[in-house]
């Protein structure tokens, strides 16, 4: 039986003046799937999500359940969200109907003003607003930005629970280390299109430049073929089919996601830093 895609694009295109950001992108997202959209800065990750959300003009089609998206079908978290400073956390949550899908303690007290919150706490509120709705599709642009390690792992758990209840979740992020253990699929956006589309294991296996780890390295010698030091970083090489397991082991051993880079310490900041596939 073929499952009808929950979200799909047909020949999606977007250009800013002469600059072509996306060109004829056709891609399907299954119900209850969690997809990471990654790629270097400026490649078009955020533009792709904004097109999917219907908040910017584009050519081509975006369909939810094979028809144009209706009200309430999509929840969208932009890369940069700034709520009015004088409103309360609870008022923001009430406005968007959010806050129900997150664990206790994830969001600050409902009675606190937005202006009293740190950047990370504001991001938590924004994530809670986005994931707490009844939308069938949730689009999150860098939901892990500004969050500490605990916050990042809490968001990862929230995304997992969203998928479990059948929501299609698309997450844009320049790095996907945090999402490794759970994403169903990775899309790499570059040069106006999708340059990689496959499972996370194949994505990590395609990384030719090594896995860079900062700080104390846990016991992973059985998984690596070679290691060398570059400044404060350890560059690990391994068999392609063991890359995913190596990263999972590093995370499980307590290495912070921010201390792991794929393709170098400036992962995500250079054009073309994605895996060579």
């Amino acid at each position: 039986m073929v499952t009808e895609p929950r979200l799909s694009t047909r020949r999606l295109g977007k250009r800013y003046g002469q600059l072509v950001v996306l060109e004829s992108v056709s891609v399907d997202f299954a119900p209850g799937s969690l997809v990471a959209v990654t790629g270097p800065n400026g490649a078009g990750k955020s533009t792709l999500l904004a097109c999917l959300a219907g908040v910017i003009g584009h050519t081509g089609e975006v369909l939810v359940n094979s028809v144009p998206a209706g009200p309430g079908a999509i929840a969208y978290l932009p890369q940069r969200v700034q709520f009015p400073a004088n409103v309360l956390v609870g008022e923001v949550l009430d406005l968007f109907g959010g806050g129900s899908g997150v664990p206790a303690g994830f969001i600050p007290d409902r009675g606190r003003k937005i202006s009293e919150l740190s950047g990370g706490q504001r991001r938590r509120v924004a994530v809670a607003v986005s994931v707490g709705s009844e939308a069938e599709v949730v689009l999150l642009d860098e939901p892990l930005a500004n969050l500490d390690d605990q916050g990042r792992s809490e968001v990862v758990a929230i995304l997992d629970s969203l998928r479990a209840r059948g929501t299609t979740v698309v997450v844009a992020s320049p790095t996907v280390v945090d999402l490794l253990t759970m994403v169903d699929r990775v899309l790499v956006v570059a040069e106006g299109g999708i340059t990689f589309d496959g499972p996370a294991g194949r994505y990590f296996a395609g990384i030719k430049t090594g896995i860079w780890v900062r700080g104390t390295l846990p016991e992973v010698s059985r998984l690596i073929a070679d290691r060398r030091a570059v400044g404060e970083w350890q560059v690990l090489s391994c068999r392609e089919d063991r890359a995913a397991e190596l990263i999972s082991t590093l995370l499980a051993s307590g290495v912070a996601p921010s201390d792991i880079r794929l393709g170098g310490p400036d992962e995500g900041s250079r054009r073309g830093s994605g895996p060579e596939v």
Partner: protein
Amino acid sequence: MRGLARFETRAILRGRWATAATVALAVVATVITITGLGSFRQLGLGSIGPAAVGLLNLALLLPTGQALLMAAMTVASNREGGLYAMARARGVRSSRLVASAWWAATLSAWTSIAGGFGLVAFILALNVPLADLTTFAALIAVSMAAAATAAGLGALVGTLVATRLQAAMLGLGAWFVWAIGLDLVVLGLGVFSQLGATGLVMATVANPLQAGRILALLAFDASATILGPVGAFLVDSAGRGLAALFLAGVMVAWTVATIWLGAAVLHRRDL
């Protein structure tokens, strides 16, 4: 999303700018009133006295500036801060977004008018005849209508710019043009005598805040000199009642048109 207007109203009313505008309005209005009472033993609201002119200008200039800037900056910051993107993704229409910002800015200005002129109303109640109080109430009503019209202009301005700062700059410019600039240009060029009937009507239609000013003056027992060429022409050709109706219609039309146009612009823009 039903509470969007309520949400934005809270955001504006809790801000220091709304408080500052209310305090400024209250202080200046009270000073004008007390000075008028002290100098002339009566405010001259029934006709046009110095204090009445001061209150009229204050009631039309400050609340309209406040409403225009608040609306422009609310729309711009909601767009800049991603709030509109989140709302549109959920199917909230642009007309609702713009109308919510307009309503919030209008309520903010109305709150300032109520707070700012509340003390003045009390002082007047103790010192002037009842007829003057009716005139004062009419002035406040016109001030509220003008603020609502200015908020519509502000909402449109907010949809045209990319940032809060641009909204503040363009909003100030727009307020200056409508509140003062157009008058100065027309007076400076001395073109009233050459405009003719159609030109005079068009001059009123083109400037809703000027329409509000003439409407307020109609509440007083104003002479043709005070009403100005446009006001005098309207009263002369249509009578006071129809002239007032026409001027109120101009303000309503501008309010509806600017909100509609703002929604159309926002609908076409990337958020």
